[in-house]
């Protein structure tokens, strides 16, 4: 099986704070990888390194290599703009644009220069269907995205990301602000999407990691403590720290 990402000795610093420490990891293609750990353990910083969102943070610094399908994402010929179109991201809190539902999903396509109404209509519908939101919104595409519930907004954000046809979906605690029903629908959706694209999800909900993921990485204080197949790690963690965390001793 091929790897989507090969990460070698990754370090991330913010204003001198060493957020991610010497992490090396291979993330498999078209599977769900979960990143778990207590808050502040560097898992979000790690995630934001993969589509170079960290570049936007002033005074952040990085060393080490991130290979995406064998290509270094920091090499000069690789533009972060193109990279982010291939590696989509969904954030902790639903952050729809204050536009209509349609315009939210069409945003990524329009900034790539797509103007044709029929193609846009078709791509928007397709993305909303993939995000399992189409039946709920098909009659009110012109309404503001804020008219949707929190869970629907988050699925809209996923649809918006899927519209540009990314190869990878990065999700940063996407269910943190949702109720159980909303969470269940997102999980269902991710399991369906798994067949098509690589998914990396940061979560502090261990049950969610166990239910969803194929492989899982455990971060502690910026270091990758353990990485492996989900069943193995939850059944027989090799390291004491992982066992303590999984058993709920801290975090």
């Amino acid at each position: 099986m091929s790897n989507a990402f090969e990460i070698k000795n990754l370090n991330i610093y913010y204003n001198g704070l060493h957020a991610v420490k010497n992490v090396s990891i291979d993330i498999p293609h078209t599977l769900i990888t979960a990143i778990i750990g207590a808050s502040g353990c560097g898992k979000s910083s790690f995630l934001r390194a993969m589509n170079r969102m960290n570049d936007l943070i002033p005074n952040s610094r990085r060393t080490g290599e991130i290979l995406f399908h064998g290509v270094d994402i920091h090499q000069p010929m690789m533009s972060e703009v193109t990279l982010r179109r291939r590696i989509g991201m969904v954030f902790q809190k639903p952050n729809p644009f204050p536009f209509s539902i349609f315009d939210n999903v069409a945003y990524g396509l329009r900034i790539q220069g797509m103007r044709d109404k029929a193609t846009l209509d078709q791509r928007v519908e397709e993305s909303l269907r993939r995000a399992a939101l189409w039946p709920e919104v098909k009659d009110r595409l012109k309404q503001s995205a804020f008219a949707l519930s929190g869970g629907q907004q988050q699925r809209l954000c996923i649809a918006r990301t899927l519209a540009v046809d990314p190869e990878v979906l990065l999700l940063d605690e996407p269910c943190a602000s949702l109720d159980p029903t909303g969470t269940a629908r997102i999980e269902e959706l991710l399991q369906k999407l798994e067949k098509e694209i690589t998914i990396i999800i940061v979560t502090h909900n261990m049950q969610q990691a166990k239910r969803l993921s194929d492989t899982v990485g455990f971060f502690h204080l910026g270091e990758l403590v353990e990485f492996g197949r989900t069943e193995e790690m939850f059944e027989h963690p090799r390291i004491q720290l992982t066992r303590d965390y999984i058993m709920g001793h801290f975090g």
Partner: protein
Amino acid sequence: MTSATPGSSHVKEQMVGWAFKLCGLLSLFVTVGIAVVLFAEAAHFFGEVSVVEFLFGTEWTPLFTEKHFGILPLVLGTLLVSAIAMIVAIPLGILIAVYLSEYASARVRRSLKPILEILASIPTIVFGYFALLSVTPFLQKIIPGLSGFNALSPGIVMGIMILPFVVSLTDDAMTAVPHSLRMAAYGLGSTRLQVAFRVVLPSASSGVIAACVLAVSRAVGETMLVAIAAGMRPTFTLNPLVPVQTITAYIVQVSLGDTPAGTLEYRSIFAVASVLFVLTFILNMLAQKLRASFKFTYA
């Protein structure tokens, strides 16, 4: 995969960034432009008039045949009017601000703040009309010796004019003081008045002083009000009842006449304006420093 050409779009982005930076730099060019224009003409002026006479002379008669270029009468006139304005604006302003921030209900605040903002936007020419044609005649009934042009009337009106500004800034400073500080004082048995004047006002002092400094800077630079109501006679006096001339009013006086460029009169307005610019620049910088240290304490 969409193959955007990273090269060309990157260059475009950089150019856009440079364009924005240029606009940002423009504000710096304005300051530099002011300094260059003022100081260049002033330098010519000081080629003909000695700096010592200019700074320490007590006679200002540039439009007479026998010319004297001592700026002190103008400076004194400016300070006199400003001082009267401050005597009105600062006590009233602080009283109203304390009331607004510590006593007034949210509803009163919500309606008074916008009113203050609107009052602050009244053009100064309107206040000039008011000072000359309403306040001076009224004051003349009370003070028999009051001249038709004087420092008192525009001073008082200027105080009222910058009052909203003082209230607004002082109120901002006081409301920025954390609530916990008030609670602590109440917990020690202080009354509302004690909390307001012994805890909140002192804690907000650098912000309040900044407000006063900015008010002084406004008063010193105010033009139309004094040009209309204070008179055009440079007098070396602290008597508020007789006509005086401020720095700004002198600039107006020369500008209204047809003074050709290159003459000493023309250059003299740049010389006095340099003094005004340096003075207000220092005051504004000081106020900004004070506000920055205030924000640093409570942010």
